[in-house]
């Protein structure tokens, strides 16, 4: 695996507040890496340090193996798509996309060719003469993407590129960005707070909390084996309990079944139910192996209705039971 960029012990402090706390991270060449985490965990700050907009308080940032920590953004050759898109409002779509090429002193003809090629790639060829104000949010986003791609960047950085789009378009654009990434072979770093987006799009998924990396790996690895309670929680694990042998474990709602089965069993009482068509969400209360009262959620498909107050045995499916290394 070739490394496109690397964070080595990178810290960013604003006053006494530590926004990024000594992160180490290798970004693989030609792959899509996502930085995932709740708002305020330091994702944008990390991306801005990589792009050169903000100087780390400590640590080193390498791009293609070269220490680039203090290199100004214009010397890094990276493409960045800002959360606000940051299009140049006084220029047409084509002029926006041509901006970086003009600076690179690319010839007139070549600029025209590359602008139309890039706009075609994002499906906006017909809007090249429009001003950004006239475009929809989704179209503006594609212009920002085209502008960043046109310079053939060494890395493409995307800060929450889909968060300002409506739900349907957002899902559509996931595949679109994936397609562009594989067609161009670009190395992409994408920041998001949406776990579905990260799971669907990433080759490498990096989970962050309070300026630290909690876990990184392929979506499959991380999803099946969350390292700690935070990661599990963030990825939708809802049942946390200590088993009879004193080990802290978790299981997803769809792997908690009502009734006795093969796995970890607990005696529980139904607290409430929510019927949702495809499934029935059953909230229960149980006392776990440590003597603590815990709240459990079972996502039941094809099951009969249950009444609140019912006492029942629940089973956490052995094949999907995850042992957590850290309680937090």
């Amino acid at each position, binding site marked *: 695996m070739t490394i496109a960029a690397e964070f080595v012990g990178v810290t960013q402090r604003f006053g006494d507040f530590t926004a990024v706390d000594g992160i180490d991270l290798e970004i693989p060449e030609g792959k899509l890496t996502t930085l995932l985490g709740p708002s305020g965990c330091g994702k944008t700050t990390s991306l801005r340090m990589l*792009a*050169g*907009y903000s100087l780390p308080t400590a640590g080193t940032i390498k791009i293609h193996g070269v220490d680039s920590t203090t290199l*100004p*953004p*214009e010397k*890094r*050759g*990276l*493409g*960045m798509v*800002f*959360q*606000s898109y*940051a*299009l*140049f*409002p*006084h220029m047409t779509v084509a002029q926006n996309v041509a*901006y*970086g090429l003009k*600076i*690179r002193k690319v010839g007139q003809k070549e600029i025209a060719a590359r602008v139309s090629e890039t706009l075609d790639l994002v499906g906006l060829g017909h809007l090249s003469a429009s001003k950004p104000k006239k475009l929809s949010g989704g179209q503006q986003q594609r212009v920002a993407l085209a*502008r*960043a791609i046109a*310079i053939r960047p060494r890395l493409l950085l995307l800060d929450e590129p889909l968060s300002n789009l409506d739900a349907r378009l957002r899902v559509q654009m996931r595949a679109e960005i994936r397609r562009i990434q594989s067609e161009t072979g670009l190395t992409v770093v994408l920041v998001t707070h949406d776990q579905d987006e990260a799971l669907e799009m990433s080759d490498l998924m990096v989970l962050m909390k309070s300026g630290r990396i909690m876990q990184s790996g392929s979506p499959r690895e991380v999803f099946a084996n969350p390292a700690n309670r935070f990661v599990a929680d963030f990825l939708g694990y809802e049942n946390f309990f200590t088993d009879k042998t004193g080990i802290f474990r978790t299981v997803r709602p769809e792997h908690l079944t009502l009734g006795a089965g093969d796995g970890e069993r607990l005696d529980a009482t139904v607290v409430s139910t929510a019927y949702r068509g495809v499934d029935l969400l059953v909230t229960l209360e149980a006392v776990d192996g440590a003597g603590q009262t815990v709240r459990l959620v079972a996502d039941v498909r094809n099951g009969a209705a249950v009444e609140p107050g019912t006492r029942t045995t629940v089973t956490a499916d052995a094949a999907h039971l995850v042992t957590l290394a850290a309680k937090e």
Partner: protein
Amino acid sequence: MRRPVAATLAVLGYLIMIVPILFVVATAFSAGRTLRFPPEGFSLQWFEAAVTYDPFMESLVSSLYLAIGATALALLLGVPATIAIHRGKIPGRGLVEGLFLSPLIVPELVVGLALYQQLMIGFGLDNLTTLLLGHTALLLPYAVRVTGASLALADPAVEEAARGLGASPVRAFLTVTLPLLRPGIFSAALLGLVTSFNNVPLSLLLQDREFRTLPVTMLDYVQQSYNPRIAAMATIILAATVVIAVIAERTVGFAKIFGGINR
């Protein structure tokens, strides 16, 4: 009307502002020899009298000269200051901004007196230079506030995007930030021209026989003669101001211009 009291007050306010102006305009067209309402007959003779009266025309040129010079200077100082205040990492930003805005608060007579003592008496500067400096200080708050308002509206990421695409700081400023500031600079310029042109206190304190602005000359004039020539001159100024206001409204919009001051 849902708020009869407010509506009545608003109408009253307009009446109080506009009616005296209408009286002045009406008397300017008088055929008589005194400033009296209703005017005696109709003629344009007082307009002719105004534009052929040398003291008015000379001081009009002085006023324009001063307004244009002071506006240019204020923008030259104010625009970079605004950018430093909004974008830079200068310590004590609030203090710096306060310094640039202080001429709005300090009474102009005090500023005038200070300039008179320090610059004219102390450094022996002539009164044109002193007036130019005084008016520049007077206009600085407008330059800072109005351009600051359009800078505050502009997304700082736009300039960063330009840098990311390879532009040096200077190039990013010239090709992206400055074009975004253009409407703000334009409205600050209009506001500066009008403010300087209409100023009396500073100009009054720092006048001399050779260099005198139009409002000061007009003030002198009414103390000595009481005829419609003054009303005609005032009407001409009014018409010019209305033209400027229309241009401003068409190009930038009042809400934007004045939004910058009252932010």
